[in-house]
């Protein structure tokens, strides 16, 4: 039994339980950092092992045989997602302490935040659908609480939409898992590929669609995206950053697993069409809005389209680009929301109508907005360029010219919406006038600024280290396209 695989889930859960017993904020913070620290350390071990052994790590909890035990599995893709998401969770925790928002001072905040971390880790490591369902529920329950913790009218309104929609999603997922079990007699992701392949085509397609709809709602793909721009902006910025960076990507992760492991079928026209609509509808929505958080929330949808496109194309190059895209997207998206949080903390708003001239007040803030913004739009030399180039090349190599053209067009629109934020908030005369003698912005919010700058630094590092990271992604895609390796590693025969 490999303890490193269990710790990223167990440590935050234990931490959450402990944290609920103590009411002192200071002790709760320490518990959170220790728990996330253990989690991060063990995910580093997992990545190191996956790379050096060049194999898939498997742990059967309690040492039971493969058919009975709860199995945790980490291949290259899962290990990558694990380490990225735990690091983001830790960074944002520091940021939210610096933000001094009322929600972090609630005694419920830290335990729930840790449950969210555990749920994320479990979703990436789950070796069976049942476990995946439980992981989703942990994650979702935590996100419901974090989204509505302040209990304002706005949060209640958007919280209701978010909770009800996700409950419907869970119901569909449970239905899908139940039907998969009824059809095959197992929920283990290692046993399923063989048994699912033996089913009639129609049954396979029905089960596949049911799971795709459930995961598609989570990932916010067209036409199931509408809940996202409605609910995310009402949460405190640090929470929106975590949700935006991580929660939708769990949906993408599970879609990739479903399409490569459970129902491998190469190119999927359905997913390609959905991807095209997701890209364009998301970015057009972004352009139509006049509040930074709203614009960025629509952006999440648009960027999901690129990842789905990679899955839809289904070639190894496309999947490698998708893995890299997810790796680039999580820190970039989170960092731009963190910058938004600084603006909101300083001025009390991020609506274009209320604010002007931020660039005049703080050149540094403008720079640290522009870096992730240009990366999101996919301009060289940033990581977004490498990621998008990979997807576009895979599209051209595959002969899918139309969707590739749509992707390029969507990218252009992304740039326009980023420039819209720039013109709306950063240009012009300073408004509202800051209190006399208050110079700069970043220096007044030290913890928030330091974490944001660190994360922007990470996104730049991804661009610099694009070579080795891309190699890693290619190998991850190789594993994804070879389900037999997964099956062998788990069942051991």
């Amino acid at each position, binding site marked *: 039994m490999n303890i490193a695989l269990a710790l990223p889930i167990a440590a935050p859960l234990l931490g959450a339980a402990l944290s609920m017993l103590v009411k002192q904020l200071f002790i709760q913070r320490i518990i959170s950092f220790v728990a996330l620290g253990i989690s991060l350390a063990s995910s580093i071990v997992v990545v190191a092992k996956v790379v050096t052994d060049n194999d898939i790590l498997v742990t059967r909890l309690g040492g039971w045989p493969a058919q009975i035990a709860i199995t945790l599995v980490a291949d290259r893709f899962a290990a990558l997602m694990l380490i990225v998401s735990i690091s983001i969770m830790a960074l944002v925790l520091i940021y939210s302490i610096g933000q001094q928002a009322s929600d972090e001072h609630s005694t419920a905040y830290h335990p729930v935040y840790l449950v969210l971390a555990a749920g994320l880790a479990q979703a990436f490591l789950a070796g069976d659908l*049942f476990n995946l*369902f*439980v992981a989703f*529920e942990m994650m979702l*329950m935590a996100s*419901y*609480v974090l989204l*509505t913790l302040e*209990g304002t*009218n*706005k949060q*209640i*309104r*958007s*919280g*209701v*939409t978010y*909770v*009800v929609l996700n*409950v*419907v999603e*869970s*119901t569909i997922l*449970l*239905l899908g*898992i*139940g*039907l998969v*079990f*009824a059809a095959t007699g197992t*929920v283990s992701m290692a046993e399923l590929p063989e048994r699912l392949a033996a089913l009639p085509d129609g049954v396979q397609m029905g089960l596949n669609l049911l799971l795709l709809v459930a995961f598609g709602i989570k990932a916010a793909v067209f036409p199931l995206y509408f809940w996202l721009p*409605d609910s995310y*902006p009402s949460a405190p910025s640090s929470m929106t950053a975590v949700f935006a960076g991580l929660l939708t990507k769990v949906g993408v992760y599970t879609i990739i697993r479903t399409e490569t492991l459970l129902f491998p079928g190469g190119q999927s026209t359905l997913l390609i069409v959905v991807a095209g609509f997701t890209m364009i509808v998301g970015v057009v929505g972004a352009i*139509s*809005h006049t*509040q930074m958080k*709203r614009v960025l929330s629509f952006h999440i949808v648009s960027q999901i389209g690129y990842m789905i496109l990679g899955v839809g194309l289904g070639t190894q190059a496309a999947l490698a680009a998708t893995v890299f895209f997810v790796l680039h997207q999580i820190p970039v998206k989170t960092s731009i929301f963190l910058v938004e949080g600084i603006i909101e903390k300083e001025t009390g708003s991020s609506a274009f109508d209320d604010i002007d001239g931020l660039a005049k007040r703080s050149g540094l803030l403008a720079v640290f907005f522009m870096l992730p913004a240009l990366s999101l739009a996919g301009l060289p030399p940033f990581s977004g360029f490498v990621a998008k180039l990979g997807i576009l090349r895979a599209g051209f190599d595959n002969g899918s010219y139309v969707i590739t053209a749509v992707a390029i067009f969507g990218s252009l629109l992304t740039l326009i919406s980023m420039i819209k934020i720039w013109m709306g908030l950063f240009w012009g005369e300073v408004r509202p006038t800051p209190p006399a003698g208050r110079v700069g912005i970043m220096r007044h919010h030290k913890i928030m600024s330091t974490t944001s700058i660190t994360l922007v630094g990470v996104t730049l590092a991804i661009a610099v280290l694009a070579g080795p990271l891309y190699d890693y992604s290619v190998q991850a895609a190789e594993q994804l396209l070879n389900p037999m390796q997964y099956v062998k590693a788990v069942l051991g025969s």
Partner: protein
Amino acid sequence: MSAALIVLIGVLFASGTFLLLQRSLTRIILGVGIMANAVNVLILSIGARAGEAPIIGRDGEFTDPVPQALVLTAIVIGFGITAFLLALAWRGWTIDGNDDVEDDDEDKRVASAKPLLGGTEVPGDYQ
């Protein structure tokens, strides 16, 4: 699987979906509960077979524990979510005296914006 169960599942799904589409949060909560139970009945009726308790080391015809565990987990989660939604409904009621799900402010703003290029008028209930 008996026809009565199939009809029951269908009726539960239909009424759950109908209630979910209402404006009042209380009805939505009822809808969520009914739909969750439709799935539970479905899983039990198609996945589980009757038999002895599945304990390793015993002989006999075992029942399959997986669907039962799945349904048990789903029931517990459903309980938690219903409690949470009720708390949300209560909070909404203490804030503005009703439990209707409201339109999004920003959506209203976008919908009521002056149409470009002389586009069509916006339906009245959005303004």
